[in-house]
């Protein structure tokens, strides 16, 4: 499992791995928002937490197909499937690698981009905390979507169509926690719910992902 994790991380960091693309996308989304809604500071402050969450979610979505697509093309996915490591574990590790290369950088970038959006003071901690708790769920759910569409030629759009509705609960609780934090309210309840969702999907989703991947590798 460690070897697989190290391998996935290396592949992502090396040239052509696309590491940083998600970050750049996050930056662009956040830059475009003021152009779309206007530069009024109070308006931006009100929506900043939500925009950061939405941007992180979209950046995450954009990089999902890389979880499995390359390994599918060069056949290493078949090797993984026949290896002694259970496919469930392999997919959990791959989701973890995706989170480390996409989710975690997004969390680290969020406060910087928060400045651009005039995020209110208390919002920084809560936005980052809710992203730390919530983005693993995005990666794990995304790995399910990637496994579902891995064999398809026009998988990209379909992947978004399938994965985005699955992101709804995570987004609701994550953005709610960040928003309450930014407004100076108590964000504990949505944070706990978000933690519950993440814990639940991390525990259960790899089984669903492995099930669909086995069908696709048949």
């Amino acid at each position: 499992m460690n070897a697989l994790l190290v391998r996935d991380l290396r592949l992502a960091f090396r040239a052509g791995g696309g590491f940083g693309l998600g970050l750049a996308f996050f930056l662009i989304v956040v830059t475009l928002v003021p152009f779309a809604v206007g530069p009024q500071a109070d308006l931006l402050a009100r929506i900043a937490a939500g925009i950061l969450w939405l941007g992180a979610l979209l950046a995450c979505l954009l990089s999902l197909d890389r979880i499995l697509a390359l390994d599918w093309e060069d056949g290493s996915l078949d090797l993984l499937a026949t290896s002694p490591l259970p496919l469930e574990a392999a997919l959990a590790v791959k989701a973890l690698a995706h989170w480390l290369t996409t989710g975690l950088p997004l969390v680290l970038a969020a406060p910087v981009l928060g400045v651009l959006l005039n995020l209110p003071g208390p919002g920084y901690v809560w936005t980052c905390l809710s992203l730390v708790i919530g983005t693993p769920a995005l990666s794990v759910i995304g790995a399910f979507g990637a496994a579902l569409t891995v064999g398809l030629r026009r998988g990209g759009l379909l992947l978004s169509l399938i994965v985005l509705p699955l992101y709804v609960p995570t987004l609701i609780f994550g953005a709610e926690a960040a928003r309450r934090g930014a407004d100076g309210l108590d964000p504990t309840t949505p944070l706990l719910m978000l933690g519950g969702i993440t814990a639940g999907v991390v525990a259960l989703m790899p089984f669903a992902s492995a099930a669909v991947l086995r069908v696709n590798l048949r």
Partner: protein
Amino acid sequence: MSFWEYANPVKFLTLSERVLPFFWALSAICIVVGLVWGFFFTPDDFRQGSTVKIIYLHVPSALMAINAWFMMLVASLIWLVRRHHVSALAAKAAAPVGVTMTLIALFTGAVWGQPMWGTWWAWDPRLTSFLILFLFYLGYMALWEAIEDPDTAADLTSILCLVGSVFAVLSRYAVNFWNQGLHQGASLSLDKETNVADVFYHPLLVAIAGFVFLFFALVLYRTGTEIRIRRTRALMAREARIA
């Protein structure tokens, strides 16, 4: 004689051809009776005026939109456990019916909401979860369309249906948390003291029965079509191999 005999496509088709006329007739009668009774022979609501009459379309379609997904869930489970092709095809056949019901519910709701709430759309928990349900239907149908191999498609869509069900329920409660609603609470529950008044209740029940029969008829009919499409394809493949 067991229920599972009808997993055999031939037996299924024979049975469905025998019962389909009754389902069509029952659904037509119930819907016509329910709607005519509801539209012309019930009083106007003292607050909502005649707009109340849209419930005879809105409530049954909303009910069937959810039940269609539930039926797909059951059919998907049967496919995953017992590998009956008819079951997978029934789930496939139910999806477009369900999505249409969802659309009817959303549309009639908007038409009613405009004069009553003063808005076509509000981010109310029920409205929002229906919109999300609509998205789930779209994803499910798109996945069926995208995969060529029928067994792979059936497997993948079935698992998506299971996972989607969990997330649909999660979303339903998440949106409750996220926004307070405009939509009125349940008023047809069997275990409640105050339900919708009997004058509206009885024609509504008839209309609901009509929609249930309509749903069964449509799903049976569409499943039959799917079976025949599958059979035609098999025949054509065999022809091509011989030639």
